[in-house]
């Protein structure tokens, strides 16, 4: 039975950063990941990471852009912390070995990104997330004495002690199918996003909202779950992302009539307006018949000098070539808004603490909230690192003054039974893949760029029915070694929990703010709706709604114009 001061679940940027910070704080650390850490989805982040590091820039300017981008739903105290600590974090990463792009003087160089008033995005070609993730993993290998890595282990449930404090987690070793009870003084969830609820999505197949659902089931509060970002430039069909870096480098958007339509929606910032704004503009063009027959508009990268494309956008040259058959240096590529990011998540304070004592959350699964209604490009990597570090450091401090808790043992038995039950069950119900496909389609239809009550109700009913059906899914794999089939059945249930919360939040918020655009309530309503929507699991398994204040420090809500 493994024991650790700090147990980190998830080994993307947030998890790895938390583990390193906790180790630095003197804690014994365990880090669990259902895939090898460098396979985590953080490596998909192409564009870069924001920081006001340049002497001409200021953290206040970064913070204001973030507040405005959030459509005034972000908590300003948290945003201030993130933006103030950003420069040091970038320097720390640079010192660890991240190969950030340099300018001619050999110093860190930047690129422009959407919704930002200065070029403050630091990057490594277009493999920024990957470069940082791999460098952090180098550090994990270096500090393998302090940090035990459990690679390809899958956490199925959180465990508390008698007093209701968090005390560990039940985890399955994917390689041999054994179930273990991990004991820990503090647990940090860093399990990433939940994009796979939607189809298509830019998110990897592993982004199934596991931690969000596990925290919710353990009594933690979820916040702003309705805020789901649709990214303006994704490939139709498979949903792969074309980085915002492309527009940052100067690429244009055109409709099928050859108009640079952003002139009508955001005359100043054009293609570099906030993501929610650009996605809505595109969707409007498409809905009003000015898109291409495949339901897309065109992104023209050929206006960017070829040399620069190869230097800074190499990854999307490959994506275009391999996944769309398009040479982006020669012709425009067809794109549309696609599911990309969840702004909401497990409610935490600025040290990552959730409502459950001893339980922390950081990264995309958490909601501090710095992104509010809409996340700015290149702010998410920053979020994972800053709040990953803060959680790790805080959890290590707390663990220092504690003795090892005694987790209750029922969960281990219950989880074992649950998994055995799924494996042994005879096929009477639907396939996991069928339910997942139905969920993906209904969410993308009714809970996307434009929403209304009628559609959302359809989505809610469907999700509720699918939740029932998911209880009886049967699987084909009867083995223990790498039984991915049974894990798929668990992930499906996590996703459906997430989906129910997303739709519930979207129905509740009767206004349009950030990523939530209600065609039946098309205006932003500051009077009633500058507040967070909190959801917690009710006794009957449905979400209970409550509200909390948005923290304002120095920025009063204004109309958002780009």
């Amino acid at each position: 039975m493994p024991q650790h001061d700090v147990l980190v679940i998830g080994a993307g940027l947030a998890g790895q950063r938390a583990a390193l910070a906790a180790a630095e704080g003197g804690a014994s650390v365990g880090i669990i990941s259902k895939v090898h850490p460098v396979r985590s989805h953080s490596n998909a982040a192409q564009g870069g990471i924001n920081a006001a590091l340049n002497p001409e820039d200021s953290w206040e300017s970064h913070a204001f852009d973030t507040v405005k981008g959030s459509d005034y739903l972000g908590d300003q105290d948290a945003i201030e912390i993130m933006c103030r600590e950003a420069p040091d974090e970038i320097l720390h990463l640079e010192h660890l070995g991240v190969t950030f792009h340099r300018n001619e003087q050999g110093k860190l160089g930047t690129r422009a990104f959407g919704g930002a008033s200065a070029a403050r995005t630091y990057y490594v070609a277009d493999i920024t997330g990957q470069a940082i993730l791999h460098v952090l993993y180098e550090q994990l290998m270096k500090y393998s004495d302090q940090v035990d890595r459990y690679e390809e282990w899958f956490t199925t449930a959180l465990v508390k002690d008698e007093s209701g404090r968090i005390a560990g987690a039940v985890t399955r070793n994917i390689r041999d199918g054994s179930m273990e009870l991990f004991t820990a003084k503090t647990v940090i969830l860093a399990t990433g996003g939940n994009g796979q609820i939607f189809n298509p999505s830019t998110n990897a197949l592993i982004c199934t909202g596991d931690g969000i659902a596990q925290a919710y089931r353990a009594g933690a509060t979820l916040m702003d779950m309705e805020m789901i970002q649709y990214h303006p430039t994704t490939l139709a069909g498979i949903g792969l992302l074309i980085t915002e870096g492309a527009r940052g480098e100067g690429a244009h958007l055109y409709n099928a009539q050859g108009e640079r339509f952003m002139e009508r929606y955001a005359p100043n910032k054009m293609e570099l307006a906030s993501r929610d704004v650009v996605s809505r503009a595109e969707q409007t063009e498409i809905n009003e018949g000015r898109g291409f027959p495949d339901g897309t508009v065109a992104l023209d990268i050929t206006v960017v000098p070829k040399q620069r494309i190869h230097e800074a956008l190499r990854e999307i040259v490959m994506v275009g070539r391999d996944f769309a058959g398009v040479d982006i240096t020669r012709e425009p590529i067809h794109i549309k808004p696609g599911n990309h990011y969840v702004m909401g998540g497990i409610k935490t304070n600025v040290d990552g603490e959730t409502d459950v004592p001893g339980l922390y959350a950081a990264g995309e699964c958490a909601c501090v909230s710095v992104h509010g209604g809409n996340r700015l490009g290149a702010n998410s990597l920053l979020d994972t690192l800053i709040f990953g570090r803060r959680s790790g450091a805080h959890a290590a401090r707390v663990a220092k003054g504690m003795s090892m808790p005694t987790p209750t043992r029922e969960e281990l038995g219950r989880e074992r039974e649950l998994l055995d039950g799924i494996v042994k069950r005879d096929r009477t119900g639907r396939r996991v893949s069928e339910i997942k496909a139905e969920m993906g389609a209904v969410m993308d239809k009714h809970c996307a760029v434009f929403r209304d009550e009628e559609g959302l109700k359809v989505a809610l009913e469907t999700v509720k029915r699918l939740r029932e059906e998911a209880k009886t899914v049967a699987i084909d794999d009867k083995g223990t070694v790498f039984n991915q089939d049974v894990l798929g059945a668990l992930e499906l249930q996590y996703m459906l929990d997430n989906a129910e919360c997303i739709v519930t939040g979207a129905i509740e918020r009767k206004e349009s703010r950030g990523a939530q655009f209600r065609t039946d309530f098309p205006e932003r309503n500051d009077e009633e709706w500058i507040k967070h929507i909190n959801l917690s699991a009710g006794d009957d398994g449905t979400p209970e709604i409550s509200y909390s204040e948005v923290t304002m420090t120095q920025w009063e809500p204004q109309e958002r114009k780009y």
Partner: protein
Amino acid sequence: MPEYKLKLRRYDPESGQPAYWSEYDVDLDAERSVLQGILTARDDQDGSIGIRCSCRAAICGSCAVRINGKTALACNTAIGEAAEKAGDGNPIVVEPMNNMPVIKDLIVDMDAVHWKKVQRVVPWLLPDGDPPEREYVVPAESMIDITQSMACIQCGACVGACLSMEANPDFIGPAALAKAYRFVGDPRDGQERERLKDLAEDPDGLYTCTHCFACVEVCPKDVAPMNQIMRLRRRATGDFGIKDRNNGYGHEKAFVNLIEKYGTLHEAQLLPRSFGDGSLLKGQTEPGAVKELIENLPTAIRGLKSGKVSPVKALWHHKLPGQENVKRIFDEVHAKEDRLELNLYIVGEGNDEEIGAMAEIAKEDV
């Protein structure tokens, strides 16, 4: 939608049975990936198929397998193309990678091989002294240069395809050595010499690579591991004068000098020249070199026996007809003042990459 036939190599470690084949028919657009084909089969027909995958976009490095015998990422191999390559009516054959033990179906034990080798190269930055207050100021090109190694997604395709690794499982291998270059080429690292010495002196290190190009060919991210190995060698010998244990540097030098002179390999001179850093005279007169040569006599004798080196040939070696052309290539390369030092990575045009790899070889150690 066309229908494709997939033939997967399966292995269930719990069954006590040897590996077997399963076939699946899937309907899919030709541009979709082989991975999508496998996942479709898993979704609709057989949930027990084991394959690692996540990003679907050649970013996470999970899904390297062998497709029709060639190592590749399943997610960036188009199913239509794979079917064409398989040929008329043949199924697309998908197998686990080579050089690593199979755990289940298409899943191999990366820890036991790939990651162990990565660990071997001390894969973290070792700067001298404390970091500066701001960033390290380094040439922009140096960051671009090592970003080519940084682009590695640790998929293991090169490891699975490496011929030297197949012959010698202890070889550190292409991915780990490419990773090593990421530190050696990083101006912020303070251990360049120690790293190079360590890798050069390892009998299974830098000089075990036989330039077979397999890693360059299969790498989905154009990391071109072999080129990084060449760079390591060049730095080791050129910049630090480090001699390798199995005399690879001398061997290569001899190889190149012989080609320059004769246009073909002069097998009988290769060994003596190798031990004299490429010079025949030095190889036959220096005491140390003579000792090495005697120790290697069995090789020469084997050569004689196999007919590779005939006594006549040993005494008199024909020059290749058209040797002037070979000489011209060498002259041109010698005339260049700078050796080609940095990775072309993101600087060049897309389709120059192949040429880049070739240029590397041509300029190696001449």
